[in-house]
């Protein structure tokens, strides 16, 4: 379980420093594979059909379907890399280091009633969540924002799968379905943004505001 968590944290750090969108898509896909592995590892003592099915579904959606969908969207767009993020890559990495320290500090203050399978779970989950939030506010392209949303969701899911026992299957499926539809709808929206604006720079979406200045 620990190796998967370490890799998860590493991919998050790499995402902070990547400008090429294809690379970012691959990194997020790799996170999906790691999540599937985590699902199995978290239930290592009793692997039921339910767990295997869930892991397979995560692998299919986060590891394959989303990257494929987003790559298709990217192919239609002119943009290949993130254009001038609000926060430079160096500064993003520095913020990431700070976020990692913060996550370990926070998780030391949040005593879990029952011990989780690995001490790394809570800090890594929090770190991935923070990276997702940071990327959403600091990146400009719409596609990168969707990837950031997925990273955020991955972090939250890591917490859920490793700490919460016995989540009902129907809820887990519902969550996955919602995320799937969300990515699908966002993908369609980006497709339209491409057509309307000839770019996928969400920062240019500034027609609607109360004060122009």
């Amino acid at each position, binding site marked *: 379980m620990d190796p998967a968590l370490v890799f998860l944290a590493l991919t998050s750090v790499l995402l902070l420093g990547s400008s090429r969108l294809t690379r970012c898509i691959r990194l997020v896909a790799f996170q999906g594979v790691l999540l599937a592995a985590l699902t199995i590892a978290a239930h290592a003592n009793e692997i039921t059909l339910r767990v295997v099915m869930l892991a397979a579904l995560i692998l299919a959606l986060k590891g394959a379907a989303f990257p494929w969908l987003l790559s298709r969207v990217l192919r239609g767009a002119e943009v290949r890399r993130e254009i001038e993020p609000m926060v430079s890559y160096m500064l993003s990495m520095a913020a990431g280091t700070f976020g990692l320290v913060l996550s370990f500090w926070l998780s030391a203050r*949040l005593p*879990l*009633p*029952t011990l989780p399978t690995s001490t790394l779970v809570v800090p890594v989950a929090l770190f991935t*969540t923070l990276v997702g*939030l940071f990327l*959403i506010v600091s990146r400009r392209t*719409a596609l990168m*924002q*969707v990837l950031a*949303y997925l990273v*955020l*969701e991955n972090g*939250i899911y890591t*917490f*859920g799968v490793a*700490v*919460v*026992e*016995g*989540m*009902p299957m*129907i*809820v887990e499926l*519902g*969550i996955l*379905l*919602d995320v799937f*539809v*969300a990515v699908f*709808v*966002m993908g369609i*929206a980006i497709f*339209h*943004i491409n057509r*309307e*604006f000839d770019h996928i720079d*969400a920062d240019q*979406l*500034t*027609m*609607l505001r*109360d004060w122009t200045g």
Partner: protein
Amino acid sequence: MIVIALLAIPTLSGIGAFFMTGDARRRVLLVVAAVLHAGVAAATWIVPPAATAGGWLRLDPLGQLFLSVTSALFLAAALYAVGYLRRERRAAHRDFEEGLLFTNAPEATFTACLLFFLAAMTLVTVSQAFGLLWVAIEATTLASAPLIYFHRQHRSLEATWKYLLICSVGIALALLGNFFLAVAASDHTAVRGAVLLDDLIRGASHLQVAWLKAALLLFLVGYGTKMGLAPLHTWLPDAHSEAPSVVSALLSGALLNCAFLGILRVQQVCAAAGQAEFGQQLYVGFGLLSMAVAAVFIVGQADFKRLLAYSSVEHMGVLMLGVGLGGSGTFGALLHAVNHSLAKAMLFLVAGNILAVYQSKSTADVSGVLRVLPASGILWIAGFFAITGSPPFGPFLSEFTILKAALDHGRDGVAAAYLALLALIFVGMITAGLRMTQGAAADRWTLARPAEPVLAIAPPAALAALVLMLGLYIPPILRRAIEEAAHLLG
């Protein structure tokens, strides 16, 4: 069975609408589904439905209240939509703000999403498990996003993107709140693995307080984003002003309530755990802040649909303030939720009528509505007086109840700030409303007055009648339901 029927009617007709050919038949389906849904929702007041799906789906007084409002609004919106869609059936429009040509989304997609939206909102009101509630609230976002992008042009696309992304991120944080709540429950065998609301409430004294509080914070931020509480409201004015008016009416009147219900569910658990006050402090703060931010943007607002949108931010603040005060304040807040929904939906529908004739959302371009569109003009003025809390309309009564609760609890500072903000917003809104309705009509309408079709007037007029009725007389059955619902919140 009844609960299943409530979910099945919109879902199945949504699927039907998506695959159906022929616009006229699809509109009939929309109205039939709305009438059936409203009929079944009304029947729940006579025959209380039993819990189904192992207790996961149940209609308690709180859910019933919000379900009924949603269903009534949807019926009004569906009737209005028939006329609206008929008007909008053109190959390409000229955008009145920038002069660009654009088309509409296919009507099949629009109608199907409208019905799925109703199904998702129904699921929110009947969910008795936090996980399912989360799934349903996220589903409302996804079903309504295509509705905002009905007019295929870049302003509505921008609004859709902001709405999708900001609300999805907010709701993702609420998912973390769900997990925190599960951790709070894992400490004691009495509540470990509990998923149903009732089980959590029964064993609430065994919940771990620190995790429960952290969960409440995440839920408040997550669902608060969706509810449009300041400072998380940034998507709301854009989405509500760029969506077609019939969709804005549902977004403002029904959807915001659903997010409010999400917060109330967590408050139910907190109250049972003896932690009611922790949340209430926050609610009062968020409430007053939302009202203040709304007031700043309402005064001098040049776009009348944005004006209505900011007024929604204000009223969500009033709701939070009421729940934050507790006691009779909670009763006032729930009553106000009903009043606000009816009044705001009616105003958005009338705004659609004005927009269709004047082709402008600017308050400066619109004058003499009373002369050009007499029925819409009267409704517009009545709506503005109702929404700003003037007697004899319903919102006056509920806002007054909340004021009285503040004074009774000795919160004089809160009461003073609340009154001052209400007064400021009253001036801002009424100035804009009167300026639009009074004055001379432009020359082009002195000869041929535009027609006001029945389907564009009857639905908002019916809602206005309800708002007026609630100001004069609250039916005992409704009063009892609101009292029971307020009792659930401790």
